[in-house]
């Protein structure tokens, strides 16, 4: 797109010179997110208020320029990538925690607030914000709303939509409104629920009112090493079936846990094939009872070792190994493609076997990292994009893994969203009627298709 000087000047008039970027070099950081998809924006703006966002939206409407909302750019589906150019509205400057209402356990925050910062502030009142994506030190709550983000502790607590009472949004018309009415009891259409997870295609979220949770009295974290991935998967199913709802059950296969150990020295046994990280929360006495039960269950699957974090430092080390595993995989090859399918958790073992078979077929290493308790797989396909054909092979393998997930009663994405990356796979899961039904929602909110065009729906539909 040719830069429109008149449009640029109007952007400057709205947000100020220093918050408008049109220089290609300066915009490189905005051309991608955490995926391999790329697209150069035509303009980047960093508004400081909802009024500025609304004015930007009206202006973009006037000039018929696509709008791509962007949080911290940590997304893993190409959702914030400006595939066809357009105006990026970055919400990073809107980063104030407006209010913590400790009595009613809610927080009102601007959309650019970093996820972890909410819990840090809420901890002064013995509270925290539950959804914890692995990128929680960097990702924004507005981005979490757009993607309906999850995280390891969503096993017990649920995902973003379960923790949002209301959102202030700028609609494609430029109108500003709250969706949801702060009350837990609602009536009428759940616009809040529809908007969450709409991947920036319905408008821009500018403020959020989140629910906060009372911090547990005690947390206990287990690191259990198994001889094979099937035992770990079956132990996961047995723990869940026993009636315990752990706060998290995470799994790393041999490749992933080896890389994690090399990166962190967390104490993962050298001879382990697969590692489970199990975390339980509650009252002191409750933890003691559940600890015994979990030991009994995992012992049925002949574990190599059961380690229990003896203090907060060791617990953090266990989690550092899990949350830092993607970075640690860089030791094996420079690039990875992270898949995000979800299957019924009883299908974990057969699906992982299939992933292993496909890995051999394609000749690419796959490191499996899973939110096992939720049945959410993250097979991480490791490759080197400098090797001709490797990128295409990795993408093809990823597609085949998603097909296996769907064939086993699963879905295309558990927590990263469809975005640009997975949109061509939507027909695997949804009929034309289903997609038309969804597309009707898009048209109601955004009849001119200006908000994040080219996402979610397969190309022919756009």
């Amino acid at each position, binding site marked *: 797109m040719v830069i429109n000087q008149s449009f640029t000047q109007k952007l400057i008039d709205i947000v100020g010179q220093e918050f408008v970027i049109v220089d290609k070099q300066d915009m490189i950081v905005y051309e991608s997110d955490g995926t391999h998809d790329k697209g150069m924006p035509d303009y980047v703006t960093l508004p400081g208020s909802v009024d500025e966002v609304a004015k930007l939206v009206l202006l973009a409407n006037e000039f018929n320029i696509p709008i791509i909302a962007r949080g911290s750019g940590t997304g893993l589906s190409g959702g914030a990538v400006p595939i066809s150019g357009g105006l990026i509205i970055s919400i990073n400057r809107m980063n104030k925690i407006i209010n913590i209402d400790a009595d*009613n356990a809610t927080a009102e925050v601007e959309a650019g607030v970093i996820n972890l910062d909410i819990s840090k502030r809420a901890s002064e009142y013995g509270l925290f914000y539950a959804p914890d994506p692995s990128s929680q030190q960097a990702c924004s709550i507005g981005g979490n709303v757009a993607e309906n983000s999850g995280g390891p502790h969503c096993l017990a*607590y649920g995902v973003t939509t379960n923790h949002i009472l209301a959102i202030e949004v700028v609609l494609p018309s430029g109108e500003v409104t709250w969706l949801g009415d702060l009350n837990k009891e*609602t009536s009428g259409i*759940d616009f809040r629920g529809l908007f969450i997870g709409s991947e920036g295609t319905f408008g821009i979220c500018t403020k959020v009112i989140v629910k906060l949770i009372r911090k547990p009295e005690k947390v206990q974290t287990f690191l259990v090493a198994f001889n094979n991935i099937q035992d770990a998967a079956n132990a996961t199913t047995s723990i869940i079936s026993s*009636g315990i709802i752990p706060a998290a059950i995470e799994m790393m296969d041999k490749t992933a846990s080896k890389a994690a150990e090399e990166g962190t020295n967390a104490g993962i046994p050298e001879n382990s094939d697969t590692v489970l990280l199990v975390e339980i929360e509650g009252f002191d006495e409750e933890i003691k009872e559940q600890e015994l039960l979990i030991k009994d269950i995992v012992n049925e699957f002949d574990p190599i070792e059961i380690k229990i974090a003896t203090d907060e430092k060791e617990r953090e080390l266990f989690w550092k190994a899990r949350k830092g595993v993607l970075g640690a995989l860089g030791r094996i090859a420079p690039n990875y493609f992270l898949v995000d399918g979800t299957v019924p958790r009883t299908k974990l073992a057969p699906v992982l076997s299939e992933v292993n078979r496909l890995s051999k077929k394609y000749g690419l290493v796959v490191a499996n990292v899973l939110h096992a308790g939720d049945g959410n797989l993250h097979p991480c396909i490791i490759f080197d994009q400098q090797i001709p054909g490797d990128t295409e092979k990795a993408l093809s393998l990823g597609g085949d893994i998603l097909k296996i997930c769907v064939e086993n009663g699963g879905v295309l994405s558990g927590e990263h969203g469809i975005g640009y990356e997975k949109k061509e796979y939507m027909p695997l899961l949804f009929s034309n009627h289903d997609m038309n*039904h969804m597309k009707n929602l898009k048209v*109601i909110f955004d009849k001119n298709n200006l908000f994040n065009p080219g996402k979610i729906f397969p190309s022919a539909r756009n």
Partner: protein
Amino acid sequence: MIKITYLTLVKFSLRREIKLKFINGQKILGIFTPTNKSELQKTVLDLYKSGSPMTFIGGGTKKHFGQTYNKNLSVIYTNNLNKIIDYNPSDLTITVESGMKVNSLVKELEKNNQFLGYRLPLVEQSTIGGSTSYGYSGTYRFNDIHIRDSIIGLEAVDYNGNYVKSGGQVVKNVSGYDAHKLFIGTSGSFGPIYSLSFKVYPIPNNSIFVDLLFDDISDAYLLAKNYLLYNWNIPRLSIMSSSSDRMYKLTVDIVGTNSTVTKISNSIYADYKKFTQYKSELSDRIFTDNFGYELDKMKILIKFTSNKNNFFLPLSDYLKDLDLKYDLMINPIYGFASLIVDFDDNLNKFIDDLKLIMTKNKINMIIEGINLEQHNLLINTKNTNNNIINTLTKSFKDTYDNRNLFSPGKLL
């Protein structure tokens, strides 16, 4: 009279309901009881094509609520769509047809020591599809679970008679829009639900009840306030009051391991001793949550919702000296209260006064009951001043039901 060509396929099997000639003054044109997916599809398509307004009834527990509409209706009963479609207890998910009675679903889950996480009212009569359409989760919610959060997938019929699917049978899913939210709490305004998938939970190992009496509601609230955020261990905490005794009963359900329920109940009793001379004991009451669900014609139900857990104090204060028969149930954890009052000559003035107090305190108020229109009592203070929301709602209705034939008059 509308000609309906599909009558040969549908069954008129519900003798009790055949007697029902009117709903809120609307004449019933035809009653349809599809028994499978394709019959439901065909029924909806034929009725829509013929231009017949239609309403969907599960257990019939809510058919008298909502606004009236001055056109004749066809009624589609869903209670013959009552099968389990898929249930693997180890996955903690279940998929059922929408006409399944809540009690049947509850019993099926209980065989595997599981439950929905919340307990719905009138389980014997109501269906899971009807409860979804109404969007109410009851007063007992393990880990603050709302029905809108527990539904992970749904299939419904659109105005073209096509099945539309949203979500799935997995507990974590961001594949496409959460289009199923459209059908939750919207009273069938976008078409009938065929099937629903739920995330379910293990029933907690231990469960005890504590009932405490107070003569001052402020004391009850002060005690309750300490326990409002025990999401995993206190799924229900209600304050009940009635004009007949002017006492306040705080009822607390405690769940968890044996040691946990003991610890919490001991803590509550220790706190209780600070407040009052009344003596209470552990209760062995059977849980029921039918408050406000079996209204006769001489009573109305007023619901209050708020984002503040002490919202009910001005309401209670106002009721204290009033010469009116009422029953009140307050749920501070979930920010809502239900008030049942008798029709009497002073009701309109009472409602007007109440509206003023609620508006001043930013508390939403909705009235439900029979014959509301005759008493000029159709009130819903929520969202009515938000033109953007009203316009969006209208756009949704126009898009998904452009002839306004699905549950007309319920949403707009």
